[in-house]
């Protein structure tokens, strides 16, 4: 099932070849049309593309906004320059360079390699910081750390003249030492494209995207977002470092301001205009913004007399001035954020489109007659699994002065369906949060198969087999139905050994989602979303499945169907089930045993009949004391 060479490598590579050809081709056509003046513009565009693709790998896949990638670029750029500039030249500019760097003499290729390694090492440290700060999609403190990096590199570059040549003099390559061929740039660009696409399709990329879409849900499915974010960061920084080295080489000079605010703005705008979540989008953004800036520059320079179009521009003359480019950038960023935050392409990816076309035409030819042929097998019957026991003792939880749970005990075994019932605010969801590691109890113990798992992180509990769904739906909205389930399957393949893996297609069919398998989760209606949550949790082959109000908002018919699906899936994977609800009839209908919660305590526990007969329950829950 994973990895699929065709889907995860071949299509991205073929797609990259085509995209690369179109992008470079467009640049060359413009260059031929306008001649030498446009040559540098195109070169710069190609290098910008490498850097923007590098940024996309991190920002796109993790959703963490980084202002720091140009700071990484500065580190790489200076490292490259200090190593690549010849000793004679260094003797003139930075004779007092520390660590004997003034005498070092290596080839440009080696210098790029050193720049990449050093910058990735720095990224490793920054990455630990980002992880510690709780980086996740849109996280503010992570973004500020990246901003701090940008400013620190700039400050150091300005104030360490022995190494960097300082703020005004800077570093220079001798004339003629510049790039005399574009081949390295082409190689870097193609490499960046392939790396970006293959990473996005890789296990790490998919898990990172799941965490981008919903950090909490990803952790509840056993994903450790911090590991995937780190992987994305290191790969991303490596690509940016190559791009930054090329940029320095092409410019032939390096000043602190070359890798600072303005370039950060430019690259970020390029990224978001095309669509930050898409590699194709990043490339499109680079093209669009390069064209736009060129236009703005020409407008600023020549007014309205461009491309042979002459207009009487007097009244608007004040608009078009030099430096129009910067305003153009700022306005583009603002405009896109306000009108189209997901960029021109959103999640659209060229090679995925190619693949879907390819598949449709092939399937169309082969299987039009037998439509049902593709329908997957039903879930297999249960193989025997080791029985599991989940036990909580004396759990206390308080939020501030409010006691959400006091002295709660609970036992669940595989094969059982346990109902947890109680009025709103009784502590049911808090209990599930404790069991899944989202809330740490102030006291009490919680064990799985006799092993103490109190204060185990959520993702680790999920890998141990304690998996939940959410009351307020937390799907990976931008992923398709199948991709949502695949996230769990990826984790199960690595961490649920000893269990028979569930076939992704079978689970989807079992949850009545087969016809929607290629829809994005955000397009699903409410009932299907709930079924997808169940399917996603089941694909992890959990030992315990915790369902937080699985039928809320469903019609009676849908609820009944859902109960059947829950029972069948649980039986197939041999899981114990804990169902939370406040509907007494629903709970008594499906549960083997029931815990009744009220005001943070378990007030009754037993079979449906026992619980219903309990006088305390009648008072607390039904609100009546007498017989009915």
């Amino acid at each position, binding site marked *: 099932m994973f990895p699929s060479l065709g889907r995860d490598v071949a299509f991205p590579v073929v797609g990259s070849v085509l995209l690369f050809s179109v992008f470079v081709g467009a640049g060359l056509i413009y260059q031929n049309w306008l001649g030498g003046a446009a040559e540098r513009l195109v070169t710069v565009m190609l290098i910008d593309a490498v850097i923007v693709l590098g940024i996309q790998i991190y920002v796109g896949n993790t959703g963490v*906004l980084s202002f720091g990638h140009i700071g990484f670029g500065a580190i790489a750029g200076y490292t490259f320059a200090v190593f690549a500039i010849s000793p004679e030249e260094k003797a003139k500019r930075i004779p007092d360079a520390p660590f004997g760097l003034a005498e070092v003499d290596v080839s440009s290729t080696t210098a790029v390699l050193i720049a990449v390694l050093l910058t990735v090492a720095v990224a490793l440290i920054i990455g630990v910081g980002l992880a510690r700060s709780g980086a996740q999609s849109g996280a503010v403190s992570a973004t*500020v750390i990246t901003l701090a990096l940008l400013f620190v590199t700039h400050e150091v570059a300005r104030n360490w003249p022995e190494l960097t040549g300082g703020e005004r003099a800077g570093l220079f390559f001798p004339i003629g030492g510049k790039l005399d061929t574009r081949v390295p740039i082409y190689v870097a660009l193609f490499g960046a494209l392939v790396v970006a696409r293959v990473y996005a399709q890789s296990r790490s990329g998919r898990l990172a995207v799941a965490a981008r879409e919903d950090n909490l849900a990803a952790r509840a499915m056993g994903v450790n977002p911090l590991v995937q974010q780190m992987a994305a960061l290191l790969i991303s920084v490596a690509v940016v470092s190559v791009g930054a080295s090329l940029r320095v080489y092409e410019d032939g000079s390096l000043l602190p301001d070359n890798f600072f605010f303005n370039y950060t*703005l430019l690259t970020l705008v390029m990224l978001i205009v095309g669509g930050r979540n898409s590699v194709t989008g990043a490339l499109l953004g680079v093209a669009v913004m390069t064209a736009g800036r060129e236009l703005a520059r020409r407008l600023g320079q020549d007014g309205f007399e461009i491309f042979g179009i002459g207009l009487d521009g007097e009244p608007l003359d004040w608009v078009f001035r030099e*430096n129009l480019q910067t305003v153009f950038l700022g306005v583009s960023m*603002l405009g896109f954020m306000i009108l189209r935050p997901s960029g021109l392409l959103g999640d659209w990816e060229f090679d995925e489109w190619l693949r879907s076309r390819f598949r449709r035409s092939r399937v169309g030819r082969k299987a039009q007659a037998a439509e049902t042929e593709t329908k997957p097998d039903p879930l297999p019957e249960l193989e025997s699994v080791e029985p599991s026991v989940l036990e909580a003792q004396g759990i206390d939880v308080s939020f501030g002065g409010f006691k959400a749970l006091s002295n709660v005990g609970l036992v669940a075994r595989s094969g059982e369906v346990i109902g947890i019932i109680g009025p709103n605010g009784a502590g049911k969801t808090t209990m599930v*949060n404790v069991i899944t590691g989202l809330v740490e109890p102030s006291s009490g113990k919680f064990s799985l198969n006799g092993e103490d798992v109190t204060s185990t992180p959520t993702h680790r509990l999920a890998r141990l087999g304690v998996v939940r769904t959410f009351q307020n739906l937390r799907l990976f909205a931008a992923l398709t139905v199948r991709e949502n389930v695949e996230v769990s399957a990826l984790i199960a393949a690595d961490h649920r050994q000893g269990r028979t893996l569930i076939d992704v297609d079978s689970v989807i069919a079992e949850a009545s989602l087969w016809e929607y398998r290629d829809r994005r989760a955000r397009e699903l209606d409410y009932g299907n979303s709930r079924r997808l949550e169940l399917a996603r949790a089941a694909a992890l082959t959990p030992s315990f499945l915790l369902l937080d109000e699985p039928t809320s908002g469903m019609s009676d018919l849908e609820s009944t169907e859902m109960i059947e699906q829950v029972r069948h899936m649980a039986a197939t994977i041999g899981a114990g089930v804990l169902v939370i609800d406040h509907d007494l009839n629903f709970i008594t209908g499906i549960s083997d045993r029931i815990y009744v919660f009220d005001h943070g305590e378990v007030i009754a526990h037993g079979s449906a009949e026992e619980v219903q007969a309990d006088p305390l329950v009648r008072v607390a829950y039904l609100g009546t004391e007498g017989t009915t």
Partner: protein
Amino acid sequence: MIELLQNLIDGLGRGSIYALLALGVAVVFGVMHLLNFAHGELITISGYAAYAAGQQGWSWYIIAPLIVVCAVVASLVIERVAFSRVRGESDFTLLLTSFGVHFVVSAAFLLYVSASVKTYPRPGWVTNTYSVGPLNIEVFDTVVIVVTIVTLIATTMLLQRTMFGLALRAASADFDTARLMGVKSDSVIRGAFALSGLLAGIAGVFWLMRAGSTTPSAGIDPMLKGVLAALIGGLGSLRGAVLGGFALGLAEVLLRSRLPDSIASLTEGVIFVLIALLFIFRPQGLITVAHAERV
């Protein structure tokens, strides 16, 4: 000991301005979850207004209130033009929107005014000092500290004693619930931006007074100070923001006077590293705001 006391006073003066900036950032963050990278632009805009007024030959004592008014108006206009359109969008969008505003404003000044430094008149007492025992105290710092204390007391009263204050605090704690309770989101958000602008304006008067000039990129520095101080204090906490402002001011003064000469020029860099470390070990800032994620 004397030196430490001297640092303390200098740090308080510097920290006062940061505290006002940070409070403005925190107030807006509270109601909109927006970390406003454009906060410093209020000072850029006011700075150019001061320059324009100075060209007319107006005295500083007219320019100062003008700066405050300008900052409030600019804050409201920016909210109207940009931020009101991205309410409720993802944090990613909000962050980049404010970043975009920052660039549009500074680029517009670069393009339509000038890249060169613009000066304006300022009162003669800015650079005066007086002595208390062995301590040298700037008149400027004294004024800043006094005005800041008065402003903070007034702001506290506003937040504690008025309906607007109650609405704003409720919205900061839980925006959706506050709305259900009848708090008008429009007026709270606009009020927050006005208050944020007012605080930036008061800070701006001192900032500009000390600087004596403005450039298109003059907003970066106050923006950074405000944002960082708010983060140091713990985003969402107004008290934390003020505390963060003073902490940042003190840290700057202490580092600048204590760091060995060889790296003294890197003070700013050192502070960034310290702040990054703070986030790493205390991601929620100095003051913890309960942010229970609801599941």
